[in-house]
Each structure stands twice: as structure tokens, then as C-alpha cells.
């Protein structure tokens, strides 16, 4: 890490740079390139730790990563500044796109093109589960949990929040690390 921690301004600009570079995809790769290689704010190891934390906790991974970087140097205010840098430009563009959409989506030509785009987007959504299926393939309990969650939501129409609140603790009990001794239950 640098001897001089980045200021709020630098955090904002750095994240802005990540967001602008990543137009067209590869947010994670750009984030690593700029934060680790160009600016030297974090070592590669620290960056990977950040990714682990970002994936673990609720929230979009890349946004959590920005929060991690900001918080690492400047606490809460740093986190908010980094978040703003990451989101301001792409989000404002998206809002403009949204305004255009609500103004013009009733035009037949627009609607026809969107019908096609929606089909592709549905395919992307469909691939999300398969993408992480591999890592659970050898764990029958995990597959059972996944299947039960799926059935509860798809066929019994249970909502996400109760499903997570019920299944989450049960799964945590099952996966409680046994080797490290039974942890104290507060």
C-alpha cells in the first residue's frame, strides 16, 4: 500500500475512472487494474480479500467492492464517496435511458426491438443459477437445500424474505464448522 492513503477526492475520482473504463463490461477486472496496478492503493492480496468480503455480504458485488475500498481508507465517509464515484455517471445515464423508455416505449417499432432484447436478457437471467451450480455439484445437502428453496418459491409461491429467514438459519446450523469445536451459542 502507498505511504499516503488516498483522500476522499482521490477515492471519488478513482472509482469514477473504474466505472468509466468498464463501459461495455469487465467491471471487476478494471477495478483490479486501476486500484491495484495503476494507483497502488491495495496489494493484490488485499484486493482479493475485498472481493471475498464483497461477495459474502448483501449488496451488489462491485458496489460492495467500492464500499470496501472507500471504507478501508476513510471509513464510512470514504465508503460513501467511493460509492458515489462508482455509480454517479452510469446511474445517471441509466436514468436518462429510463426517461427515454417511458416516453417512447409505446411506439410499435421500439416495442418490437425490445421484445427481442428481452428474450436475450431472459437467457442471461436463466444462466445465473447454472453459473454457480458447479461448485455445489458434489454436495448433496447443498443441492437438496437449493432444490427445496426453488420448490418453495416456484411452486408454493413463498416470498424471498421468509424463505431466507427460515432456510438460512437451518443451513447455517448444518454447515457450522465442526472441526473448530462447537462455537458458543450466544
Amino acid at each position, binding site marked *: 500500500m502507498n505511504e499516503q492513503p488516498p483522500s476522499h477526492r482521490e477515492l471519488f475520482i478513482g472509482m469514477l475512472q473504474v466505472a468509466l473504463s468498464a463501459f461495455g463490461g469487465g*467491471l471487476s477486472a478494471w477495478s483490479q487494474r486501476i486500484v491495484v496496478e495503476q494507483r497502488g492503493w491495495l496489494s493484490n492480496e488485499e484486493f482479493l480479500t475485498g472481493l471475498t468480503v464483497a461477495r459474502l455480504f*448483501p*449488496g451488489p458485488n462491485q458496489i460492495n467492492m467500492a464500499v470496501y475500498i472507500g471504507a478501508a481508507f476513510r471509513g464510512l465517509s470514504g465508503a*460513501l464517496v467511493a460509492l458515489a464515484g462508482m455509480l454517479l455517471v452510469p446511474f445517471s445515464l441509466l*436514468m436518462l435511458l429510463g426517461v427515454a423508455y417511458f416516453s417512447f416505449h409505446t411506439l410499435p417499432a421500439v416495442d418490437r426491438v425490445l421484445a*427481442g432484447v428481452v428474450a436475450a436478457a431472459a437467457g*442471461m437471467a436463466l444462466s445465473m443459477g447454472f453459473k454457480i451450480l458447479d461448485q455445489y455439484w458434489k454436495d448433496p445437502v447443498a443441492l437438496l437445500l*437449493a432444490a427445496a428453496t426453488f420448490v418453495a418459491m416456484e411452486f408454493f409461491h413463498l416470498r424471498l424474505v421468509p424463505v*431466507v429467514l427460515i432456510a438460512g438459519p437451518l443451513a447455517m446450523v448444518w454447515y457450522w464448522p465442526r472441526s473448530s469445536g462447537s462455537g458458543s451459542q450466544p
Partner: protein
Amino acid sequence: MIVPPVLVAVVESARCSPTSLTDLGHLLQVLGTFLGLSLFSLGGGNTLLSEYQHLSVDQFCWLTSSQFADLYALAEAAPGPSSMLVGLLGLGAAWPEGPWWALLSGYGAELAILLPSTLVMVLACLSWNRLKDSPWRIAFERGLGPITLGILFQVGLKILHTADTNAAGVVVSLVVCVLMLRTRISPLWFMACAGVLGGLGVINR
């Protein structure tokens, strides 16, 4: 790995009557909704997609089903994290009140969905050294993973169902799914090609 063609024939729930709220009432409803969901955005946020659909289409009638599908596609196509969809939902919720109010609602919705998870993330960063080897952390990570997996499959089907395209569209969805898994082609290409197919009338809904 073949996805069974959507067996779900869940009939579109009868159109709910649009909520009649004052401008401010709408805004508060939007903010409250997303504040409450924030901490349930597991697996990078995609687990919430079904919830978003349920709230904005079935429960609050902010959007029609196909509008939701359109906004999801826009958020996927636009640069930046796809969780920015929430901003579009907020925008749509307040659109009847005019574009400026809608923009306020859009920015508010995005802040609301990000604020709680951001605060938790900051706490996590500050205490990571203690959390790292805690059995709670390990159990949380291992336990929530499979649940996320189940949710993501449900979300995938839900979006496919919401897209509600003709047979050609479903075929395109399945092909895109396979290509997403087997290749590293940018999804923007898939959207562009499918958009052309839509424009030509091959895919419709």
C-alpha cells in the same frame, strides 16, 4: 443441462388496481420497499429480481409485466452494475407524476436499496479481522450459498416467464443461456442480435 420449457402456466394474476397515492406517498412507498429488501440481496443482488417483479407488478402496480421485462433488459444492457434496475423501477413507479418527480423517485429508490447493505459492508470491513475466522462467517458463507443457488434458478424462470415471448423468443433465451455458460462473448452482442430479430418480427410477444 436442459431447462424444461417453462412448465409454469401460472396465470397472470388479475391486474391489480393502481395504487392511488399522493406524490409523496408514492415516494415513501418506494423508499420503504427498497430499504426493507436491501439486506436480502444475496449472491450479488440478483436474488432480488423476483421480489422486484412481484412488488412492482403484482403488489403495487407500478409497471406492467412487459414493462418490467423491458426495464430488466435495459439495466442489463446499460453499463454499470445491473442492480441499478432498482432506479428504473423507482422511475417507473412515479412516472405518472411527471419526469422530475420520477427522477427523484429513481434516485431515491437506488439510494434506499444500497444504503442498508452499504452500512453493513462498512461494519464488515472494519471488523473483518475478527470476523474472518469466526464460525459464524464460515456457516453464513457455506449455508447461504445453496439457498442463493435455489433462488437464482427460480429468478431465471421468473424472468423467462415475465419476458413472455413467442416460441422463437424462448429458443433465443435458451441459446443465450447456453452461450453465456459456454463462451465469453459479451452479452451485449446477444442483445443486439436478438433486438434485430425482434425488429424483424421473428421474436414477438
